[in-house]
């Protein structure tokens, strides 16, 4: 599976996204396509030896609490060590921050291999995102001690936002932070506060993988009048280490952060999920209770800063979902090629003396495999496209950088939600291809489904993504994000028209884009927010399908027709998407455009 995935990734990077052009830019002068393929090969070997064989083990030998520590299997430690030695965490960071300025599209390709092998092996995404936030907003000291230790894999990171009573609604968090003494601003690690409160659904917040864990915690701080804002304005961001450290980064004493319990999950079981208590007096750091936290950036700026990490994490959630979709596709493809059952639908097939055929020869099995291919490879391509935008943000001209930022902002809810929804459906079909055995733990596809089921929930639920898309992204900057996306799609259509066989797909996509525009305008035509957003999720589904149709057309238009299985496969996936999937948008976009009130009018007592 991994070799085929790596070859697909190489195809996307070279034939479609033209990485050789990107590598001409000064930021990437150290890199070449040769060194990037070497990196992919090395990642494939590590994934094949340290991740994939243990995916089932981390699902069954779940993290356990021995009263003092949360113990992870040896396989997790080995995998973490191999990632650390590989040195991938800081790879795309600037040289001055200890990085190697690897293009993001290459880094994403590497991570796809690990995610397809064992998505819940270790907290690499969290740690890297946490450290990246500190690079963006932290002080030199915060970067030197906390971010560097995370990039070196000596410590791991978390993001602590949710609370038992406040998940999607972060304005309602109650964890608070108070200045720690008169000299609180004099601490070398930043203004020092004491935090109290409970956090929920915090991944990798307790484990024995590393000897320190860096929590990035959202908490409310009082304004100069001592009043805590009930909205989001009072939310600040704090570094709260599990163990406090001295100026050299040496561990000193346990912070007042305590594990309340482990949450038991149906998937993603390799990474412990916790509820945490901050400042309950379990420990007395610096002589008194209260979790010591160091302010990041300015007080009251916490949510904006956290969304830096959150947006990066959302793209990586999409990538993980896409990789899981691919893993299920590969497993069911392998099964369908060797499992014999039934005979052809032809006259000859009625003869029971004839041997049975591999199930891949049945049209409906082919359909289920093609759906998975179109969903998972399309989703991987979308994630790589977004990674390409991240590279453009860093290396393009001023105009390109701005456009890339707005496009990425607009596409973030799509890149998070589309793979989460449709690659879960791909995993559903992978189970279906295997039939009865797919419903047992003897084959990996049921685990892929369980692991993928998380992705519509964490880092902003599906519904939250939809509200973000229709309520904010397509209307911000007077709709510039949507206009830029339309420009990109129009550019693809113009290029695709050079290939006569793509003419009808170009027409179909033009009409689809028009329908997105009409749905957006229709939803907002009364200016009533409740009406506009009532059908935000169907809107996002329609929008997402149009984006994926565009991605598929762009891939096919950019790659020279060649009589080889890779390009033929991509063309078949595109044809499938335009014939079977794109027509679905009418129902989704129609209810959004017409502000259909069926759901909002529903009364509690009618359920």
């Amino acid at each position, binding site marked *: 599976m991994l*070799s*085929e995935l*790596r*070859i697909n990734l190489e195809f996307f990077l070279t034939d479609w996204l033209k990485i050789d052009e990107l590598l001409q830019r000064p930021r990437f002068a*150290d890199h*070449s396509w*040769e*060194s990037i*393929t*070497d*990196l992919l*090969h*090395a990642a494939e*070997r*590590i994934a094949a030896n340290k991740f994939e064989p243990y995916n089932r083990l981390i699902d069954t030998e779940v993290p356990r609490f021995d009263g003092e520590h949360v113990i992870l299997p040896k396989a997790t430690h080995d995998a973490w060590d*191999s990632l650390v*030695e*590989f*040195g*991938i965490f800081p*790879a795309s960071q600037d040289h001055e921050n200890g990085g*190697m300025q*690897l293009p993001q599209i290459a880094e994403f390709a590497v991570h796809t291999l690990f995610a397809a092998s064992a998505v819940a092996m270790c907290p690499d995404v969290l740690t890297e995102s946490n450290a990246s936030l500190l690079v963006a907003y932290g002080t030199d000291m915060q970067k030197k001690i906390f971010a560097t230790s995370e990039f070196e894999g000596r410590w791991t990171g978390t993001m602590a936002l949710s609370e038992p009573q406040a998940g999607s609604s972060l304005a309602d968090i109650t964890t608070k932070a108070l200045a720690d003494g008169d000299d609180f601003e004099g601490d070398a690690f930043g203004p020092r506060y004491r935090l109290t409160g409970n956090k929920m659904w915090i991944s990798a917040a307790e484990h024995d993988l590393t000897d320190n864990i860096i929590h990035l915690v959202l908490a409310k701080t009082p304004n100069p009048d001592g009043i805590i804002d009930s909205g989001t304005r009072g939310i600040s961001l704090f570094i709260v280490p599990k163990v406090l450290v001295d100026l050299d980064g040496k561990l000193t004493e346990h912070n007042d952060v305590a594990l309340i319990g482990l949450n038991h999950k149906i998937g993603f079981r390799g990474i412990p999920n916790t509820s945490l208590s901050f400042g309950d007096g379990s420990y007395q750091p610096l002589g008194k209770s209260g979790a010591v936290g160091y302010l990041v950036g300015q007080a009251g700026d916490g949510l904006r800063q956290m969304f830096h990490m959150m947006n990066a994490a959302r793209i990586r959630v999409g990538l993980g979902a896409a990789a899981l979709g691919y893993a299920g596709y590969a497993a069911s493809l392998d099964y369908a*090629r*060797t*499992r*014999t059952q039934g005979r052809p639908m032809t006259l000859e097939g009625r003869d029971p003396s004839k041997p049975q055929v591999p199930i891949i020869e049945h049209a409906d099995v082919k359909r289920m495999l093609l759906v998975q291919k179109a969903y998972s490879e399309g989703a991987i391509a979308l994630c790589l496209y977004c990674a390409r935008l991240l590279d453009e943000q860093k290396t393009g001209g001023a105009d390109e950088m701005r456009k890339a930022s707005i496009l990425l902002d607009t596409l973030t809810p799509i890149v998070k939600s589309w793979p989460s929804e449709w690659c879960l459906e791909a995993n559903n079909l992978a189970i279906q291809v295997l039939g009865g055995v797919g419903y047992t733990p*003897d084959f990996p596809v049921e685990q892929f489904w369980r692991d993928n089921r998380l992705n519509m929930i964490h880092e902003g639920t599906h519904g939250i993504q939809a509200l973000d898309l229709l309520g904010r992204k397509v209307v911000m900057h007077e709709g510039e994000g949507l206009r830029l996306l339309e420009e990109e799609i129009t550019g693809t259509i113009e290029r695709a028209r050079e290939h006569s066989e793509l003419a009808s797909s170009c027409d179909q996509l033009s009409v689809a884009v028009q329908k997105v525009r009409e749905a957006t305008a229709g939803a907002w035509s009364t200016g009533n927010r409740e009406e506009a957003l009532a059908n935000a999720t169907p809107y996002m589904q329609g929008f997402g399908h149009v984006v994926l149709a565009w991605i598929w057309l762009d891939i096919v238009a950019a790659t020279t027709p060649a009589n080889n*299985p890779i390009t033929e496969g991509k063309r078949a996936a595109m044809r499938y998407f335009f014939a079977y999937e794109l027509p679905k948008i009418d129902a989704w976009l129609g209810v959004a455009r017409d502000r259909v009130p069926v759901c909002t009018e529903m009364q509690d007592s009618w359920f």
Partner: protein
Amino acid sequence: MNVVVCVKQIPDPAAPGSLDPSTHNLVRGGKLILDDSDSYGVEMGLQLAEQAGGGEVTLVSMAPAGETSGLRTALAMGAAKAILVSDDTLAGSDALSTAKVLAKAIERAQPDLVLAATESTDGYTGTLPVQLAELLGMPSITFAKKVLISDGTVRVERQTEAGYDDVECPLPAVVTVTSGVVEPRYPSFKGIMAAKSKPLEQLAVSDLGLTSDAVGAAGARQEVTGVSAAADRQAGEKVVDEGDAHEHIVRFIEQLKLA
């Protein structure tokens, strides 16, 4: 302690391969990768050089079209430098003519020890290392599962069907390393970047003092007379462990031996 490791670069097993219909030889166009069985030799060489407290690992390879992808992988693992022999006249080489070329290249490195895999993954002749030893005038030990160096002697635990034999010979020597005896390190990102600037000497046949009629198809004494397609892969057999799984496993391995 200077170690030469013979490294073969082979077509990526993940990519669909093809045979030249006229010669039945494997088509070696495009990107080649490090033969996985050679990664054990590279790791063994690196460990021996580290244990000796000095010296380095030099890679020696023969490949078409100046192909270096597999060599870069081994350099990224930690080898110090590489010698590549690449020449159009080498097309169609058999094991012996390849050994002649590699022997000449290895002489330039003046090693204390030459390591090779027991056999390559794409050719499986398993004859090259001992031919190489003969040409170099060195003793050879095959199927090493453990290698120790001391006082100018190499001591080897040599794998046998029944266990292993303790054998030794004076250095310099040629030793073949079986797969799986050490865990090859993975190239790190920094190692991959550093490999780009490591010395890689590329030689033609004439640089080695050989003539073109002694190498390649002209010098080959082996010929592939026919090939046939491998049987399609069949569905696996699932064994339910009801306390007797070990017996199933033993039977399965016995069947493999018979095959």
